[in-house]
């Protein structure tokens, strides 16, 4: 315990406590709340799916500074990969097959690596964004036009009799979201994260300090595609009926972006807060406002970008700015 305190300090220990308590509460939720009957179950499930995608986008856009607009393609690819393999009897043939889910993440990651090598080596800024967007639209058309292989615009059907309870979905999605957040957190605190942040800050300077800029951009891009694909496979298990219009929907691009920018781009907690808030707006907005909520989400993106581009975490970090400055000042005036 003492060693832990020394490592984390006062604030770190409190944060750790909060996180452990929150995870314990969320993990045991199905035991004291009927997630099948309550809408909360669906809300938290879908929040976790979004959060997984959002953390992936956060890694490439927030930490690496490369805005990708191809997330929905990776999400859909993940869903279709899982479903296609399952239907063809590949994998261990049980519900939420881990191997299928991992493959569902790897497939889009491979696509992302290939397109990343082509695009990221030549383009940056807006054009990278539009290159990924164009790619996503191509993938969409391929699936709509895929005929028997993809089921075309009607999509494909999985065996819905596997559905037992929302509990399983909830736990799987929660576990994956927690692992995704943890993975992004660990990555960004490792030397890998140093390279990503350096690229975000100044890619030329990063290169002249020895960072292989292209390699790390592609890795981050592939990792974000992996998470999107993984989330896609979970959602695929939930849908049972996969069609291009639903799993390649632009919502799988825009909502995670909104969650990240609202919460705070390039922070680890930001996407968590953002996805909890936005997902509540969408999930309950559907109930209370019918189909209007996308209007508000568009408006929300505008408001956030116009008035607080740093997101909620940006505001939080600004609040104790005075105190922080003092701390910095002390540090800079005592070189001895």
């Amino acid at each position, binding site marked *: 315990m003492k060693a832990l305190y020394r490592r984390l300090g006062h604030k770190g220990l409190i944060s750790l406590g909060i996180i452990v308590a929150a995870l314990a509460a969320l993990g045991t939720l199905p035991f004291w709340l009927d997630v099948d009957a309550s809408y909360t179950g669906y809300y938290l499930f879908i929040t976790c799916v979004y959060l997984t995608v959002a953390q992936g986008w956060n890694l490439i*856009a927030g930490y690496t*500074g490369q*805005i990708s607009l191809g997330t929905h393609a990776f999400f859909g690819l993940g869903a279709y990969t899982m479903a296609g393999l399952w239907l063809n009897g590949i994998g261990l043939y049980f519900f939420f097959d881990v191997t299928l889910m991992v493959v569902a993440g790897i497939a889009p990651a491979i696509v992302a690596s290939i397109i990343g090598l*082509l*695009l*990221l*080596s*030549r*383009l*940056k*800024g*807006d*054009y990278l*964004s*539009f*290159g990924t*967007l*164009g*790619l996503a*639209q*191509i993938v969409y*058309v*391929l699936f*709509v*036009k895929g005929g028997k292989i993809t089921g075309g615009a009607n999509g494909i059907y999985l065996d819905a009799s596997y559905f037992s309870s929302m509990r399983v979905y909830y736990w799987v999605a929660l576990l994956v979201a927690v692992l995704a957040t943890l993975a992004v957190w660990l990555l960004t605190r490792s030397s890998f994260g140093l390279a990503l942040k350096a690229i975000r800050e100044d*890619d030329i300077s990063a290169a002249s300090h020895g960072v292989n*800029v*292209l390699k790390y951009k592609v890795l981050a891009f592939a990792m974000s595609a992996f998470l999107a694909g993984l989330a896609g496979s979970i959602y695929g298990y939930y849908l049972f009926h996969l069609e291009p219009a639903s799993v390649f929907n*632009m919502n799988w691009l*825009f909502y995670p*972006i*909104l969650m990240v*920018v609202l919460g705070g781009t390039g922070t680890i907690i930001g996407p968590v807060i953002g996805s909890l808030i936005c997902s509540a707006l969408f999930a309950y907005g559907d109930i209370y406002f019918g*189909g*209007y909520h*996308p*209007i508000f*989400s*568009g*408006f*929300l*993106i*505008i408001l*956030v*970008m*116009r008035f607080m*581009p740093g997101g909620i975490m940006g505001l939080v970090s600004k609040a104790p700015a005075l105190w922080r400055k003092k701390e910095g000042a002390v540090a800079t005036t005592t070189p001895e």
Partner: protein
Amino acid sequence: MTILLQVLINGVLFGTMYGIAAIGLSLVFGTMRIIFLAQGSMIVLFAYLTYWLFTLLGIDPYVCILISVPVAFMVGLGLFYTLFKDAAAIEDKNVSLLLAVGLMYMVDNLMLTFWTANPRFAATSYASYTIRIGDVNISFVRLMALVIALLAAFVVFYFLKRTRLGTAVRAASADMQAVKLLGISSNWVMAVAFGIGIGLAGLAGVVMASVYSFDPNYGFTFALKALVALALGGIGNVWGALSAGLILGVIESLGAYYIGAGWADAISYAVFILVLIFMPNGIFGGRAAVKKV
């Protein structure tokens, strides 16, 4: 042979709208370095305005041009001063990109709520009128679209080449700081460029409503196509953008005919990515649209 000719002509006529939209994008990008992804949504919005003016008030779409283009111009000025002015001034272009994304999403869904996803069309009495030259049929409204696009390109070209303000807009795309030093308001220059960009969206909206049936979901696809045309034509070249739009129309039309309808989109995006990768200056040369790493 006749069929091929017909396909080509249809492609050219269809591509006019891409061309108009691309000219608008080019103006906005030239001055503000922003890719205005909501351009397609604005076009559909003004198509609905035309549709309303036509069905509710009985105003002919071509008369609508006199209303919707000035309105669109004002909307452009308004959008610039409320949303993009500050974003244009900062180095981080991701903010303005996401602003445009938010705007697109909001407008698309607003339209979906107001007008539903049912396709609409300003069914004028002359909408189905065709002109027959030899064995080739040319739709009157599509031909008008080409004429309008050429006129619009000429007006924009004249503005940029012959007027003081237009010259300032061109100068601004080379060096905003130097423009400021001459006492020219950089915000006004950007606002005007943005206004004209949206004004062209107003024009494209009229054309869209009079020629095609459209629905709210069309905006995003359309913005992407305009972007493809922009990438093909190279930034800062009015005729390049228009021609690229026409070429894109032909490519899609040929693709739809020979490979199958529905593949057209995939083909144009593939062209887009190939151009981005191998010809970042567009097929007409022009200024580099892409900063190389």
